[in-house]
Every structure is written in structure tokens, then in C-alpha cells.
């Protein structure tokens, strides 16, 4: 009888301490991952790309041997300060809504005479796309700490937002995935990675506001163009065309949702 009681007590003790260990373990995992992220935040290799981008911005190149210093990113020719915070936006010269990358394609082709198609077709991280990465890193640095401020006053801006929203919820592929599958609810994660809910202001601000970023897993600087491209790859979709109306519209949806959020670009990601 006594033996039995001791046994029950022992079992109870072992089980409860096991439970404590497990729950404590889960807590420390999250803490340790947070600590890891904090430790790598010091010294963001994006800075290496910014430096290269500044050089590319100011150095004459392309068939027209011109610099990008007259590129109008929406705030006037050559104005970089705060420009990325207000993109995407409608541009009357192209009669299109453009995000940073599609606008830079316009500048590189009109000012420098570089073929737009060649930029679009270049593989990520190589050739003209490598230049694009650096220029993007340079430009977005000048919006760090500012608030996202993207309007939908122009009918084309409003339309891009609505189209982007539809694209965000569009399911397809052999896994039935949409952007919304992973980014449509709050507090979820894939493996260890927290997923921002891009349908809310807070989530969109966290997501949109921290890309482009240096990605430590690949040791590469990723523009939003590559970020979206890899999302679609993981969605098991076909290949989204670089600088297309589609990727601009999806960016518009995220950016408008993120309005008011503080920009932390270039970011540093797993």
C-alpha cells in the first residue's frame, strides 16, 4: 500500500518535472533564437552592397555613358532621400504604377540606354541584376527610419492595390498555395520563422518594412523582386516576371497595408 503510494508520488514528480522541463525548453528556444537574431543584427553585410550601389549610381555607364543621378524616383530627378518610402506610385511619363525596381529599370534604360529586357532576363545575383541589387541597397538606405507613405489617390494606384489584393489571395499550383496561405493570419510560423500577417497594418509594416534585406542563409542581398520571386517558387507557381505589373501590384498591396510603419531597410534576415 505504502509502496504503491510512493510509486504514484514518484511518477507524479517525474511527470511534472518533465512537463516543466519541456515548457521551459520551448520558452528558452524562443529566447535563444531572439538572442541569435540580436547578435547577428550587429554588422549587416547590406552595407557592402550600399557602398557598391553608390558607386553605380554616380558612375557613368551604359551605351549612353550616363549616371543615374537624374533618375526620378517620384520626388524629382536625383532625389533619393525618402523616395523608397513612397513607392510604388504612379508615374506619368510611363503612365504606369511602378515599384522601386521597375522604376530603376526605366531609369537605367532611358538615362543609360541599357536594355530593359536584358535587366529583366538577367539571372538573380548576376550581371545587370547584381548591379540592380547594389543600387536598390543604396536607395533604400535613404528611407531607413522613415514611415511607409504610399497613396492610392490616382485611379491607377487604386487599381494596382485592388489587383494586388486579388493576386495575394489567388490560389494555384499543386499545393493550392496563395500568398495568404502563409501570410494571412497572425502569430503563425513556418519551422522557426515567424510569418508576418500581411493583411494587417502591423504585419505588413514588419514584412514590407524590412525588405530588401541581406539574407544570411544564402549570404545574398535580396531585393523585394527576389523576395517575391522566391515566395512564388515556394508556392510552386510558375516564374513571376521581373518588374511585371503582377509583382508591382502585389508590392502595392503590401505597401499600402504597411502605411505608417517604420522602414528598417536594408534588413538582415535568417
Amino acid at each position, binding site marked *: 500500500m505504502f509502496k504503491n503510494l510512493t510509486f504514484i508520488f514518484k511518477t507524479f514528480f517525474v511527470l511534472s518535472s518533465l512537463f516543466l522541463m519541456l515548457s521551459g525548453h520551448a520558452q528558452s528556444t524562443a529566447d535563444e533564437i531572439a538572442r541569435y537574431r540580436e547578435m547577428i543584427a550587429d554588422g549587416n553585410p547590406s552595407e557592402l552592397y550600399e557602398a557598391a550601389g553608390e558607386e553605380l549610381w554616380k558612375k557613368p555607364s551604359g551605351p549612353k555613358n550616363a549616371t543615374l543621378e537624374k533618375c526620378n524616383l517620384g520626388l524629382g530627378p536625383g532625389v533619393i532621400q525618402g523616395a523608397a518610402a513612397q513607392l510604388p506610385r504612379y508615374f506619368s511619363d510611363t503612365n504606369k504604377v511602378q515599384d522601386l525596381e521597375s522604376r530603376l529599370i526605366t531609369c537605367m534604360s532611358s538615362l543609360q540606354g541599357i536594355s530593359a529586357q536584358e535587366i529583366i532576363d538577367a539571372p538573380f545575383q548576376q550581371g545587370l541584376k547584381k548591379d540592380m541589387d547594389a543600387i536598390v541597397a543604396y536607395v533604400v538606405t535613404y528611407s531607413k527610419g522613415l514611415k511607409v507613405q504610399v497613396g492610392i489617390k490616382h485611379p491607377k494606384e487604386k*487599381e494596382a492595390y485592388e489587383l494586388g489584393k486579388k493576386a495575394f489571395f*489567388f490560389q*494555384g499550383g499543386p499545393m*493550392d498555395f496563395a500568398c495568404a496561405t502563409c501570410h494571412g493570419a497572425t502569430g503563425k510560423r513556418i*519551422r522557426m520563422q515567424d510569418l508576418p500577417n500581411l493583411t494587417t497594418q502591423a504585419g505588413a509594416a514588419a514584412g514590407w518594412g524590412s525588405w530588401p534585406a541581406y539574407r544570411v542563409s544564402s549570404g545574398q542581398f535580396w531585393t523585394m523582386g527576389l523576395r517575391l520571386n522566391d515566395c512564388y517558387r515556394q508556392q510552386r*507557381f510558375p516564374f513571376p*516576371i521581373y518588374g511585371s505589373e503582377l*509583382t508591382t*501590384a502585389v508590392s502595392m498591396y503590401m505597401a499600402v497595408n504597411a502605411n505608417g510603419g517604420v522602414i528598417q531597410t536594408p534588413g538582415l534576415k535568417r
Partner: protein
Amino acid sequence: MKINLLKSALTIFLLGLLSSYALAQNNLNAQFERMMASGFKAEGIAGLDRIHQDETQKFCSNPVFANSKQGAAKAIQIQKINLATISQPTDGKYIGDWRSGESIAQSGRGATWTDKADTVNGGGCYNCHEIDKKEISYGTIGPSLWNYGKARGYSQEVLIYTWNRINNSKAYNACSNMPRFGHFKLLTQQQIQDVMALLLDPQSPVNQ
């Protein structure tokens, strides 16, 4: 008289508003289709057919409608369509090898444009589910599957339900986030049996 006039004027106005709204919607839909058609190119094994939606995908791409009253009725219909696609194991076996199931659950490979046609697909289960507690890197889009069998028991009913759920989750929840592993042949019958074992073999670490 006056009131009647007012009423019809209002009706005409509202109809006009409605039809211009409908027109705008139609216009937006047409724009959207054009944008999607010009927004992608085929790459490797990921062809453009992947953005041609089936009825389930079309329904679930409009969450506002899917979550409405009308949508609820349609959802039941969608579930029926999906339930009808499921076939039971041809060899009558539901449970394979949990060790192999664990490695299938770990792997998130397959079906992207960087994969080959002969890449062995993973289930990617840990991306969204906690399964064996030993794996601390797990996602939370789906529920925890720790102690799956231990909690539910190992009855034939549980076996069939789980088999169906892995093969075609949309048979139970029209817009479940889970891929239809059997329906789209993402996993082979053998692989599904192995994942079943991970969840429902009493020897599996999941049920300890």
C-alpha cells in the same frame, strides 16, 4: 405621387450605382486575368497550367465570399467533390514505416521550378506542424500532431479519417491550408503509408 417619383428615382440611382459597381468589378476581373496571364512564365517543371485554377482553388481565392452564408453552402459542395477523389490504399495497408515517415515529414523538397521532375517530394509536414517533440524547429500553421494516435486511439475509423485527410484535406475543410497530397500526387501511396505510421504506429516516437 411625389413619394413614388422619389422612390423610382432612388431605385434608378441605386441600380445605376450597382451596375456601375458590377461593371467596375467585371472590369477589375478582366484586368486581373490579363495581369496574371502576362505576369508569369513557365520555368522548369512549373508550367503555366499551374495558374489555371480548379473549382476548389477558385472558391478559396475569394475568402470574403467563402466565409459568407452563400459561401458556406458552396463549401459543402466543394468538400463533396474532394471527398469523391480519395481512394483507399490499393494494398489495404494504412500503416507503413514511421522512420521513413519522419524523413518525409522533415523534407520540404519538390515541385518547385528548381526541382527536377524526378525529385522525390517531401511532405513538408514540420513546416506547419509540431510532430515529434524532439524536432524543435516546427511551424504552427497547422495543429500539433504530437501524440496523434495516443490521443485519438488506433481504430479503423481514425485510420481512414487520417488517410483521407492526408490525401485530400479539402474533403473536410474546403479551404484548409493543407495541400492535397494524394489528389495532386505530391506523395506516393507508400509515402503516405509511412507518414500515417509516424502518426498512428503505437511504436512511433510521436505516440510515446
